[in-house]
């Protein structure tokens, strides 16, 4: 690759890197060509972090489409129980039952299976792997000034475990007994007793295998992210100079590493219960009047283990989105991020607190009310660092010369969603209020807004922003803005009404409401939600079209730093080769957020502090 060494610096940043950069002799070995040469090693079993990021992203998108379509199917059944779904029979076969009047409806078992699959797929495959997997891989090496991840091989394996995990889950959709149907949290006894319901047999077995493979993927990825951030930062890149996304990915990886093994333990005991008849989670169960052998187990034990993962998991989903949004907002407001250190400490505080609040999911499961008090307090304390972050995002935008492009719009939308959903979290965090709200549509509204939609917004902000770095082209802005407004309005239309339904006590996970007197007056609201969901999904197709169209036909990126941003990924060439920088590694001279300092619009991280530069940020 000697030819790639630049002789005349193309940009100011290139010049600075040549002058002050760090020579690691990377390009004296001719491995670059070998990396790119053949189709299989370039596109499929790639070990290059940028390609692996794209693999995570596109796989995540496929899963998002599948998971999203599932939700439309069960929403249509829920909103329009009297309309016929017989037209879905060609796709769903026996899962659609047609009655004597010719009205086809989703079978009840499959309704539950779809709800379960939707939750599992979105939480794990889309918002964990698709979000953290994509952006940790893409941005960690580029933003800290590394050639690649600490172990490219483990990194590749992380993707392939994820892929395999997805394939196993996909296969479970085709079982004659259907996939697992006991909810994404897989509480026993539905999960621990193979005979409990149709999906509890082979469906649950495949579900467990799939998730164990997924845990492997998360752990391999996480080990790599942590090691890379700690060990491969370029010269001058101290922890306090890390861009906020990197802090977020780093803490996310730590959370994953500490919490996912606990899920494995929970599954391990579950498999013993299912396979060899131990009684960790099962006790005093009667089937058809016959008592089962299982005695002495406790289903609550599983809930503890599950939520010890489950609560950190929701932050594993949201932290990367927070990091991405911080960066996107600062760049597009042309202002330093407000309260950088406060942002970092909030990330750390949220990470820490997320491990001691898990039982707020179990207030109504029969845990001791005095123990609940402890969890109420810590749950409410989480609102403090969350509020700090919200305040800082708004302060960053305030008075900024904001560029309203799809990325920054989604960033702003993220803040809006996070506020709406965070506030309802505070309601739910009170164990007394939770008596009314638990397991109702209020909870569904809470977590879809604060986690589902907000994390999607963070992901969209990231994709629109870094698309040029991934594919060397821009996505279409007009289409992107349509996508934003459609999604923002659509998502509020879908999830806002659910708060009211939930406050009235309508339980989640019910197959139909029209047969209950007390719920049937929500009929029209329910229909409205379903229609809004279909339309909102349609707007996501705009994104998918824009994405694939732009890969091949988008406006070309011509300069390395299109946004006039400070971070290191914009000092790489337009076409980033293996090793990321053609010559030396950049040496970092300052933090990432010098926007508008001393009257200069932006100052790249590779530029040394000038002699008469003002000392404060």
């Amino acid at each position, binding site marked *: 690759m000697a030819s790639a060494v630049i002789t005349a610096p193309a940009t100011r940043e290139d010049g600075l890197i040549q002058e002050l950069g760090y020579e*690691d*002799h*990377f390009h004296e*070995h001719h*491995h670059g060509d*070998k*990396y790119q040469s053949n189709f299989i*090693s370039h596109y499929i079993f790639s*070990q290059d972090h940028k390609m692996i990021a794209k693999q995570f992203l596109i796989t995540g998108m496929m899963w998002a489409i599948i998971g999203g379509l599932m939700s439309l199917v069960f929403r249509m059944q829920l909103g329009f129980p009297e309309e016929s779904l017989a037209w879905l029979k060609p796709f769903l076969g026996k899962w659609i039952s047609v009655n004597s009047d010719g009205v086809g409806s989703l079978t009840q078992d499959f309704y539950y299976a779809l709800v379960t699959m939707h939750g599992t797929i979105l939480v794990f495959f889309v918002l964990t792997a698709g979000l953290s997997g994509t952006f940790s891989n893409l941005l960690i090496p580029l933003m800290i000034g*590394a*050639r*690649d991840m*600490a*172990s*490219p*091989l*483990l990194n590749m394996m992380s993707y392939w475990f994820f892929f395999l995990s997805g394939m196993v889950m996909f296969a479970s959709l085709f079982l004659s007994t259907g996939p697992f149907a006991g909810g994404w949290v897989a509480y026993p006894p539905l999960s621990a007793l193979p005979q409990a319901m149709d999906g509890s047999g082979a469906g649950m077995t495949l579900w467990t295998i799939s998730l164990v493979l997924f845990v492997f993927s998360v*752990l391999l990825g*996480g*080990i*790599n992210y*942590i*090691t*890379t951030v*700690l*060990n*491969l930062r370029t010269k001058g890149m101290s922890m306090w100079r890390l861009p906020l996304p990197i802090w977020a990915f780093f803490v996310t990886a730590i959370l994953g*590493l*500490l*919490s*996912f*093994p*606990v899920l*494995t*333990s*929970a599954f*391990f*005991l579950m498999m*013993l219960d299912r396979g*060899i*008849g*131990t*009684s*960790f989670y099962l006790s005093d169960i009667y089937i058809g009047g016959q008592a089962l*052998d299982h*005695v*002495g*187990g*406790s289903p609550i*034990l599983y809930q*503890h*283990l599950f939520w*010890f993962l489950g609560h950190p998991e929701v932050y594993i989903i949201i932290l990367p989105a927070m990091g991405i949004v911080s960066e996107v907002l600062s760049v597009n407001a042309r202002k330093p991020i407000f309260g950088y250190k406060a942002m970092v400490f909030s990330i750390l505080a949220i990470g820490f607190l997320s491990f001691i609040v898990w039982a707020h999911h179990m207030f109504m499961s029969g845990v001791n009310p005095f123990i609940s008090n402890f969890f109420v307090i810590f749950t409410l304390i989480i609102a403090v660092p969350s509020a700090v972050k919200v305040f800082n995002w708004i302060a960053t935008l305030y008075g900024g010369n904001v560029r309203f492009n799809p990325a920054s719009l989604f960033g702003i939308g993220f803040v809006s969603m996070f506020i709406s959903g965070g506030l309802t979290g505070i309601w739910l965090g009170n164990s007394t209020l939770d008596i009314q709200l638990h397991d109702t549509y209020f909870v569904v509204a809470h977590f879809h807004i604060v986690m589902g939609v907000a994390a999607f917004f963070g992901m969209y902000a990231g994709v629109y922003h870094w698309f040029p770095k991934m594919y060397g082209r821009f996505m279409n802005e007009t289409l992107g803005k349509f996508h934003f407004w459609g999604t923002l309005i659509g998502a509020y239309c879908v999830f806002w009404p659910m708060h009211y339904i939930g406050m009235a006590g309508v339980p989640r996970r019910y197959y139909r409401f029209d047969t209950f007197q007390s719920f049937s007056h929500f009929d029209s609201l329910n229909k409205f939600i379903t229609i809004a969901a279909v339309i909102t999904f349609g707007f996501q197709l705009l994104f998918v079209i824009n994405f694939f169209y732009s890969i091949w036909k988008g406006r070309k990126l011509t300069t390395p730093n299109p946004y006039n941003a400070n971070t290191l990924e914009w000092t790489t060439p337009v076409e980033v080769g293996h*090793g990321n920088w053609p010559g030396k*590694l950049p040496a970092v001279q300052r933090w990432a957020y010098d926007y508008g300092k001393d009257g200069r619009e932006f100052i790249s991280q590779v530029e040394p502090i000038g002699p008469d530069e003002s000392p404060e940020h």
Partner: protein
Amino acid sequence: METVVKQQVDIATRRNKIHPKKLALWVGLVSLTMMFTALTSAYIVRRAAGNWLEFSIPSIFYINTLVIVGSSLTLHAAFAAFKREAGGAYKAWLSITFLLGFAFVIMQYLGWEQLAAEGVPLTINPSGDFIYAISGLHAAHVLAGIAVLGVALAMAFIRPLRVTPARKLRLELTMTYWHFVDVLWIYLIVFLSLQR
């Protein structure tokens, strides 16, 4: 091509004190620790709930503790011999470690049989089930360690002994893992004896 990149990564990180692979292993061990922390916490929670069968830990488990601690010491001796480039001693100590590892797993199995014979077979009460589950999962991790030791052993007999940075690193990684399963067992046996 993996190795070339690896060398480059090594060069780029020379200024760091800890090798990335060692750091990665440590990070991985933290996550394995969490797995066992979860199981022992579950044990405490379940025990506090009552309906708990009281029995004593099979004596073989205690003897076995000596076996696995011994294997850690012999592995250390092997490492010392490796650094001295004393081929014979290296092979001998490594083989002994390997055999002790095997002995540990077999004796764990005998321990389970003893437990069952004492009237605590699997699936009678979660109290016993936990012992099987926890020691079983631990044994699985020992087996993984034995597999790695097996590779090291095969290499010791195939290749002439030369201290290269790569081989030293591999041996150090192996050693870290093996000490980990050792210390883990000490934690588990102390935990199980105290939490009767």
